């Protein structure tokens, strides 16, 4: 095929978009709508994931030590733990802090009852470490490791809560995966419908071209160009909309929901687009291919 012909076919592809206004409009909006939906749900679920990850790091356990373990030994263990990457953060709780916390929790408003403890810290051997998980999945290993350390008396952890959280994360992750997958399938389906409807309106045109002696490539060419352009436009629109509204929505949510705003940790739009943009581009290409496939199979056989 001559270069000139390729340019001609590209020109025809562009012309087709203008000439088949209804079809182009329908295709572009369908693709936009689909990518928009998938994009929104992808963004929401990626953020949910991200937030759950962040919440995981607020989960932890308390490690108690044998009577007589010195502060230095505990600090040493703290260092050991911090070096592990299952661990997000380690806090040292001195016996004094432990007693203060205890009093605050149990005897607020009835300080008189504490008379018996005057001057003496009943928890003087209760220095402890608060260990926060970086990842819930490895929590069991970490517990096993800590239990094997010298001087560790026992570990108090809200095991149930941790596991519940973990289950919940998994559930959310799988559900959003399934939902995004369903949306993707539906999108591909809707778009191929639109393409087929559009092509059927041009069936007569394609047949005439064939009767005049046009080769398949000559007829497909403009369709592929057309499909690609429509795909690109159809991807750029929703991505721009999401881009523009993302920061706004975050702003609204964080100001409206101040209370939970420190659980609402949003990803940077660029981190999301790192995956979303290639996905959308792939979609565009896919559409071009589907479009030409359908043409070949349905209407070129004359």
């Amino acid at each position: 095929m001559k270069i000139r012909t390729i340019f001609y076919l590209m020109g025809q592809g562009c012309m087709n978009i203008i000439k088949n206004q209804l079809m182009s409009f329908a295709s572009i909006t369908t693709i936009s709508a689909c990518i928009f939906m998938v994009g929104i749900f992808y963004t929401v679920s990626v953020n949910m994931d991200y937030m759950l990850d962040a919440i995981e790091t607020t989960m932890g356990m308390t490690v108690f030590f044998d009577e007589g373990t010195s502060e230095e030994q505990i600090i040493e263990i703290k260092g050991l733990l911090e070096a592990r990457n299952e661990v997000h953060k380690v806090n040292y709780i001195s016996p004094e802090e432990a007693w203060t916390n205890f009093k605050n929790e149990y005897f607020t408003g009835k300080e008189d009852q504490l008379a018996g403890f005057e001057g003496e810290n009943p928890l003087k051997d209760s220095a402890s470490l608060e260990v926060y998980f970086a990842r819930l999945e490895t929590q069991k290993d970490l517990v096993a490791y800590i239990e094997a350390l010298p001087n560790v008396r026992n570990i108090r952890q809200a095991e149930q809560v941790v596991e519940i959280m973990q289950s919940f994360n998994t559930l959310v992750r799988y559900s959003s995966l399934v939902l995004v997958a369903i949306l993707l399938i539906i999108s591909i389906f809707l778009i191929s419908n639109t393409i087929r409807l559009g092509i059927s309106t041009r069936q007569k045109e394609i047949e005439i071209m064939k009767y005049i002696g046009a080769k398949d490539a000559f007829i497909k060419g403009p369709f592929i160009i057309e499909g690609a352009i429509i795909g690109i436009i159809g991807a750029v629109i929703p991505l721009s909309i999401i881009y523009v509204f993302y920061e706004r929505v975050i702003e609204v949510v964080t100001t409206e929901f101040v209370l939970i705003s420190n659980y609402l940790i949003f990803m940077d739009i660029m981190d999301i687009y790192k995956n979303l943009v290639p996905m959308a581009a792939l979609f565009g290409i896919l559409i071009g291919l589907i479009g030409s496939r359908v043409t070949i199979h349905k209407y070129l056989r004359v």
Partner: protein
Amino acid sequence: MIRLENVTKVYPNGVKALDDVSFEIEKGAFVFIVGNSGSGKSTLIKMLMKEINPTSGSLFVEEKDITKLRRSKIPKLRRSIGVVFQDFRLLEKMTIYNNVAFTLKVTEAPIRTIRRNVPMVLSLVGLSQKANMHPKQLSGGEQQRAALARAIVNNPPILLADEPTGNLDPKTSWEIMKLLLDINLRGTTVVVVTHDKEVVNSMKKRVITLREGRVIRDMQKGDYGYEN
């Protein structure tokens, strides 16, 4: 050039449009095909350009059996045949100019050729003024002439014209016929399906007459025939 051997066409709904038809048209001939409405003339034309396939028998175009043609070779066959379809088949989204130029673009002809030939054939059929209009903006006869212009623009070795003057007044009809004769004199094999008795009778060319799918008459320097 064109040879039919025992060609029979039965449409899926059981209509037998052609029934054991055999004849040969030599290179450079000018042949009329006449016959009643529904006698199988268009079926014949459609078969020659492989729009449809015969139920049995063989068709040869330039010594090649086109019933055995591979799909990838069909465009080549069609480019060697200019066709004026009975229902015109113009591309509605293109101007008349582009409709005609399309035949040349398909063969990747040089731009110079396109720029020269298209206006030339449009003026031959008297449509220079209408080059930039779309088919829907033309009268019936104008569309028919556009279809003819498209069929002849790339000087194909064979020209099939199905009722090329059905929508034309006698004067324009005659001009078109003279044009076809001209093209024929330059070496193109021309096959014309027509109902125009006067034209057929006065041109004294070979006339093949069909009736109910059979060749009932095949005369050199023939006429339209009386019983039709």
